[in-house]
């Protein structure tokens, strides 16, 4: 791994006196699956919010290399992180456009491209043929991911009416429709049953294999994390306590301590 897709260096996020993320550094390789794990409140979602522009970090850098450009994510406006640096994300508590159809959700994800094709609305208004082609392409891309997610027959239903597991899949499809270089998934397996969870594993492996998208995921479900991750970063109280392959992380005494708390128990006794 010579040039990582994303290099996070000394990332720090403070909320008043609380240090939610404390000098965290790690790399995410392109075309690989990197998992961020840690007990509740370890700062995983805060880390994601920094990466995707919802928080402005207090210190540190996040450098993403996509299409030969280097993007300093910590200095970019929120929407540019997706539109230019091609970082897409999903949310822990699903955020679909519930009152719109499944297909519309996926069309909105292709906003930037369609907006340019519609000549910022002016050409689209007069029915410019270039826009119609772009729209048809966008529908094809949506159809592709709907097929992958097993949602094609629900394309014209309202997103809010899908069952929970399908909503999770749709949110991933929507993120993928932005054609990301880095896909950040915040607990994609939460609330899924074991079968759905296994399907999710398959899906993530497929995305990595066929589309070369780098995946960064927060997950509590260890069967997902250990089964498919190439690399694991462990956070506890905002600090990185371990970083390595699944086998390394599993054997790391600091990780075991953080998850089982044995050291503190002994100390208290």
């Amino acid at each position, binding site marked *: 791994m010579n040039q990582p897709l994303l290099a996070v260096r000394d990332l720090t996020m403070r909320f008043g006196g609380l240090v939610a993320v404390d000098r965290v550094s790690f790399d995410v390789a392109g075309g690989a699956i990197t998992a961020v794990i840690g007990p509740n409140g370890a700062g995983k979602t805060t880390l994601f919010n920094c990466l995707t522009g919802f928080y402005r970090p207090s210190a540190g850098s996040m450098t993403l290399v996509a299409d030969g450009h280097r993007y300093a994510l910590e200095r970019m406006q929120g*929407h540019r992180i997706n539109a230019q640096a091609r970082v897409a994300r999903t949310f822990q508590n699903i955020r*679909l456009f519930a009152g*719109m159809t499944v297909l519309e959700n996926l069309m909105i994800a292709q906003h930037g491209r369609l*907006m340019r094709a519609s000549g910022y609305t002016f050409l689209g208004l007069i029915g410019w043929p270039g826009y119609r082609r772009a729209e048809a392409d966008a529908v094809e891309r949506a159809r592709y991911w*709907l097929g992958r997610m097993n949602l094609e027959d629900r394309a014209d239903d309202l997103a809010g009416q899908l069952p929970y597991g399908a909503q999770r899949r749709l949110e991933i499809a929507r993120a993928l429709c932005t054609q990301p270089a880095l896909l950040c998934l915040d607990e994609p397996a939460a609330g899924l049953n074991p079968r759905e969870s296994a399907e999710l594993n398959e899906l993530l492996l497929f995305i990595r294999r066929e589309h070369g998208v780098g995946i960064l995921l927060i997950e509590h479900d260890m069967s997902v994390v250990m089964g498919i991750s190439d690399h694991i970063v462990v956070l506890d109280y905002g600090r990185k306590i371990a970083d390595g392959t699944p086998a390394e992380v599993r054997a790391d005494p600091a990780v075991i301590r953080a998850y089982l708390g044995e050291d503190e128990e002994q100390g208290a006794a």
Partner: protein
Amino acid sequence: MSPLHAVRDAAIAAFVALAVALPIVGVRTVDTGAVLGVDFRLDWVAAIVATVFLGRLCVLLWMGRRERAPRQAGMLETTALGWLALIGRFLAYGIMGFALILPMMSFADRYVVDTATQVLIYVMLGWGLNVVVGLAGLLDLGYVAFYAVGAYSYALLAQNFGLNFWQCLPLAGLFAAFFGILLGFPVLRLRGDYLAIVTLGFGEMIRIILNNWASFTGGPNGLTSIPRPSFFGLEFSRSAPEGEQTFHQFFGLEYSTLHRLVFMYYLILILAFLTSWAVGRMRKLPVGRAWEALREDEIACQSLGINRTMTKLTAFAIGASFGGFAGSFFATRQGFISPESFTFIESATILAIVVLGGMGSQVGVVLAATVLVLLPEVFRDLAHYRMMVFGLAMVLIMIWRPKGFIGARVPSIRLADFRRPAA
């Protein structure tokens, strides 16, 4: 709700009505010569209490029936939605056709054409506000400000620079759009109630400025003798200046004041059609989908690379520009404008049209505008009771159709319409 509960609930409502009506309606002082006597009108009170009891009972029973058999709007099957879209389209064409031939009907006298013009102004305003409220989900209580900006832009440009209606129309739209952006910037971070309060204040500010800046806007006296539009250079007057022709001379018609009214009617009809076409089109373009997405979830929008600032500002600007067009039309139709015409009640009426019509629905706006303009006209004979009937009608509509006349949303795109390309 069981019938027993309904009866009990209705009885409570009747008791409240009794408590209110007894002192207010039940007792009347009468002047009997020397002393002030008291007259009881218990029959009136009885009538009021009975009406409230029965009315409440009917509403409860009727709503209870709905609860048992929930008709979930939006839960419609795809096929049903397809049917709905088809009916909506037929309805839309029917209304369009009727609007086109209306002035040629035998019953179309001055009053009818004038009222129809009034309806169309509100339709246009409703469609404009629909962009902001219905699509982008930004509750705007000061929409009348843009209407005022459009009207004053036209009047002032025409009087100070001698520009004609057709030159002023786009300028008025631009001015209004500019004011839309001006309002948009400070409220970018606000939503819901907070946004509503700021926009309400903005609307009042514009009106108060117009009222007080007398040297520029004429203050409360308003602006008079605003030029009327011409039909390709032909004036609608009895006699033309030297060397020019009037409309009736050119076409060899008997002079009639109805000509101008009918012309005005078609003018607003064209403007309204243009608005409808543009808004309908934009809804299916990325910009329109982004508006709706913004209404649904702003955070998700940002994560998908949508610039929230730009999207909101375009919604404000485009909504405002339609208000501006309607405003210049209003100015040229009246020939006289003053801040009196742009009070909060106008904003409220336009918002009511959007809400009653069903958020985001274009046909709904037409239906609601028609109802809201015609109701006070129809009940003109009731004199000061007509606003009460108006209010009652609005309450009934909201009970009957909580999501507005046309509450179901038609998707902007359907996979079924895109065939898989032949492999």
